[in-house]
C-alpha cells in the first residue's frame, strides 16, 4: 500500500520499538499522577500513606473491570452504554445468591461472568448480527436492562453477604497493595496478552481501524464484533462481583447511580483508547481508572468543596488530553502508519 513507502522516503523519526508509541499516553498519565501525588503529599503528608494509596487503588478496581470490557467495544469502533445495568444486574443476582444461599467466591465470580455474558448476548446480537449502530443498540439495552434490574431486585436489596467477599475487597497483601488490585492486574495482563498476541486481538484492532479492509483481508469481522460485545458484557459482569466485594451491597439502581458506563468510557479514553477504534490498550483502562480515583482523592485532601469535585475531574480530563497531542485530530499532522499502531514489528525492507 502506498503509505508503506512513504515512511521510508521520509526517514521516519519513529522508534522501532513497538511499545513506545502504544505506551506513551500511559506514561504521560503516570507522570501526571506522580505529580499529583507529590503535590498532595507536600500539602498533607498523610496522603502518602499505605492506607490511602491502597484505598485509591482498590477503589478504582470496579471501573477498571468495566473499562477493560469497554475497551473491546471501543477498539472495534463501537461503544457499550449498557454496561452500567449489566454490572448492576450481576451484582444483584450474585449478591442475592451469596446472601440467601451462601454462595462462595469462586462460583460467585463464575456466576457474575455468566450473567454479564448472557446480557452481552443481547448487545452482540444487535450490533454484530442485526448490525444496528452500537450507540442505538446499547441505548436500548440500557433502558431494558435497567428496568430488568428493578424487576429482579423486586423491592429487596443485597446488604449482608458473607464476609469473605468484602475481605477480598478491602484487605491488603502488602502495605499499600490491596488484594483486589492483584485481581485487577491479572485481568489487565490477560486482556493485554489477548489483544496484543492473539489473532483475535489483532483482528479487533483491524476491525476497528478499517472494517472493510479487515473484511477483505479475510478477518471474520462479524464474529469479531460479536465476541467483542460478549467480552464487554462479561467484564461488566465481573465488575459487578468486584462491586460486591468493595461495598458488600447492591440495589436496584446499582451501576446507573454511579454512572458506571460514562466513568468507564472516560477511564478508557483517558487511558488512550480512541473513540474511533483501532487504538488503545488494556493498560490504558487501569491507568485511566486509577487516574480518576486519584484525582478525586487529591481533591478531597486539598479541601476542594464537594460541589467542585466534578469540575476538578473534568478539568483533569481536559488537561491530560490536551497534553497528549496524539489524541488530537491529526489535521495536517503526520501520524503513525497503521502497522505501527497495530504493534506489528517492522522488518527491515
Amino acid at each position, binding site marked *: 500500500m*502506498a*503509505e508503506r513507502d*512513504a515512511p521510508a522516503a521520509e526517514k521516519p523519526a519513529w522508534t522501532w520499538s513497538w511499545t513506545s508509541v502504544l505506551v506513551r499516553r500511559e506514561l504521560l498519565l503516570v507522570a501526571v499522577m506522580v505529580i499529583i501525588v507529590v503535590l498532595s503529599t507536600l500539602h498533607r503528608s498523610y496522603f502518602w500513606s499505605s492506607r490511602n494509596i491502597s484505598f485509591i487503588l482498590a477503589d478504582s478496581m470496579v471501573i477498571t473491570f468495566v473499562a477493560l470490557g469497554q475497551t473491546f467495544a471501543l477498539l472495534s*469502533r463501537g461503544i457499550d452504554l449498557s454496561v452500567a445495568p449489566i454490572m448492576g444486574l450481576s451484582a444483584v443476582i450474585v449478591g442475592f445468591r451469596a446472601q440467601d444461599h451462601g454462595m462462595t467466591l469462586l462460583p460467585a465470580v463464575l456466576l457474575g461472568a455468566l450473567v454479564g455474558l448472557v446480557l452481552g448476548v443481547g448487545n452482540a446480537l*444487535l450490533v454484530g448480527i*442485526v*448490525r*444496528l*449502530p452500537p*450507540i*442505538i*443498540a446499547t*441505548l*436500548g*439495552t*440500557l*433502558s*431494558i436492562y*435497567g*428496568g*430488568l434490574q*428493578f*424487576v429482579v431486585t423486586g423491592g429487596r436489596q443485597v446488604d449482608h453477604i458473607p464476609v469473605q467477599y468484602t475481605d477480598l475487597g478491602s484487605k491488603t497483601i502488602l502495605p499499600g497493595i490491596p488484594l483486589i488490585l492483584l485481581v485487577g492486574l491479572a485481568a489487565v495482563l490477560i486482556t493485554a496478552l489477548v489483544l496484543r498476541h492473539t489473532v483475535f486481538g489483532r483482528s479487533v484492532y483491524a476491525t476497528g481501524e*478499517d*472494517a*472493510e*479492509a479487515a*473484511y477483505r483481508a479475510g478477518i471474520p469481522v462479524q464474529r469479531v464484533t460479536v465476541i467483542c460485545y460478549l467480552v464487554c458484557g462479561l467484564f461488566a459482569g465481573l465488575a459487578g462481583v468486584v462491586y460486591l466485594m468493595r461495598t458488600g451491597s447492591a440495589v436496584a439502581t446499582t451501576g446507573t447511580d454511579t454512572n458506571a458506563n*460514562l466513568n468507564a*468510557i*472516560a477511564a478508557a*479514553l*483517558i487511558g488512550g483508547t*480512541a*473513540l*474511533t477504534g483501532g487504538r488503545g490498550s488494556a493498560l490504558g483502562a487501569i491507568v485511566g481508572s486509577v487516574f480518576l480515583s486519584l484525582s478525586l482523592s487529591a481533591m478531597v485532601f486539598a479541601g476542594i*468543596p464537594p*460541589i*467542585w*469535585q*466534578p*469540575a*476538578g*475531574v*473534568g*478539568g483533569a*480530563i*481536559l488537561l491530560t*488530553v*490536551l497534553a497528549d497531542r496524539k*489524541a*488530537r*485530530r*491529526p*489535521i*495536517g499532522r503526520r*501520524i503513525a502508519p497503521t502497522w505501527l499502531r497495530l504493534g506489528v514489528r517492522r522488518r527491515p525492507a
Partner: protein
Amino acid sequence: MTGIALARRHRVPAWGVTLTLVLVAELFYFTLTTRHFAEGGKGMLVLTEQFVPTGILALGAAAVILTGNIDLSAGATASLSAIVVGSELQHGTGMGPAILYAIGIGVAVGLFNGLVVALLGIDSLLVTLATQFIATSLATSIGGESPPYNFSPAFQRLGTGLVGVIPVSLLIFAVLSVVVVTVVTYTGFGRALALIGYNRSAAEYSGIRARSVLVSVFTLSGSLAGVAGVILAAYYNSARDDIGTTLLLPAITCVVLGGVDIFGGRGRIGEVVVAVFVLGFLTQGLLIQGRSSLTATMITGFVLIGALIIKVSVERAAGETLLAATRRLVGQRTAARRPLRSLLDRE
C-alpha cells in the same frame, strides 16, 4: 440537501413518513384507551409541555451529531441555564435580562466546547464530558442549599401558559424547529454540517471552513440548551442542578430514532422533530394508561431497538449491501486521516 450523502433519495423520506404514521397510530391508541389523554385535543397539546425541553435539546444534539461529533454537556448546560435564570429572577432581575443571561451562559458553554473541539482538535466526547462536569459544578454552586423556585406568573407562562389552546412552549419549540430545519436543509451552513460529518477532509478541500462551522454548531447546541433550561425553570416553577441533565439521553434517543446517523453525515432534522413527538407521547401515554415508570422505560427501549431494526432492514433491503454500508461508515474516517498522504501519493 445532503445530496452527497444519500445514495437513494426515496429511502430517506420513507422514514419520516413511517415515524409520522407511528405517531398518528400512537395518538389514536392512547385517545381511545385513556379518557384524559386527548380531552378534545387540548389535553394532548398540554402534554407536550412536558417533553418540549427534551425536544429542544434534541434539535441541538441532532445538529452536532450530523457533524460526527456529540455534545454530552447539553443537559448540564440546560440545568445551569435554569439555575441562572432562576437565581436572577429571585434576585429581582427583570424577566428579559434574566432569560438573556441564561441563554448567554448556554452560548458561552457551547462556544467553549466548539473552540476546544475545533481548534485544539480534541475529541468532542471527551471535551463535552469534561464540560458536563464543570457545568454541573457551576449549577450546584449557584443553586446552593436552597435552589430558586416560585417565579412570577408571567415567567411561568413560558412553560405552562397557553395561547388559545396551544401551549406557549410548544410554539417556541415549533419556531425553533422551523428555524433549525430551514437552516440545516437550505443554507450552506446546514449542508456543511452533514458534509463535515460524512467526510471532513473532503469538506475542507471543498472550501468549507470546518473549524468555524464546528464552533458555530456547538454554540448553537449550547444556546438551544440555554433555551431549554429557561423553559424547564418555567414549567417546573423551580430550578434544580439536575433538572436538565436527565434529559440528555432521551434527547439523543430522539435523534437516533429520527434516523440521524450517529457517525454523522446523514439525517433530517424534520424526522428528529417527529421522533420527539413519538417518544414524548409514548412515555406520557403509557404513564396515563396506568403503567409504571418501569414499564414505560423498558417499552421505550424496545421501541427504539425495534424501530431501528426495521429502519436498518428496510434500508438494507433497498439494496445497499453490507460492504457498501461499511464503506460508507469507514470510508470517511480512513480518508480523513490520510489526506495529505493520499494527495502526495497521487503526485
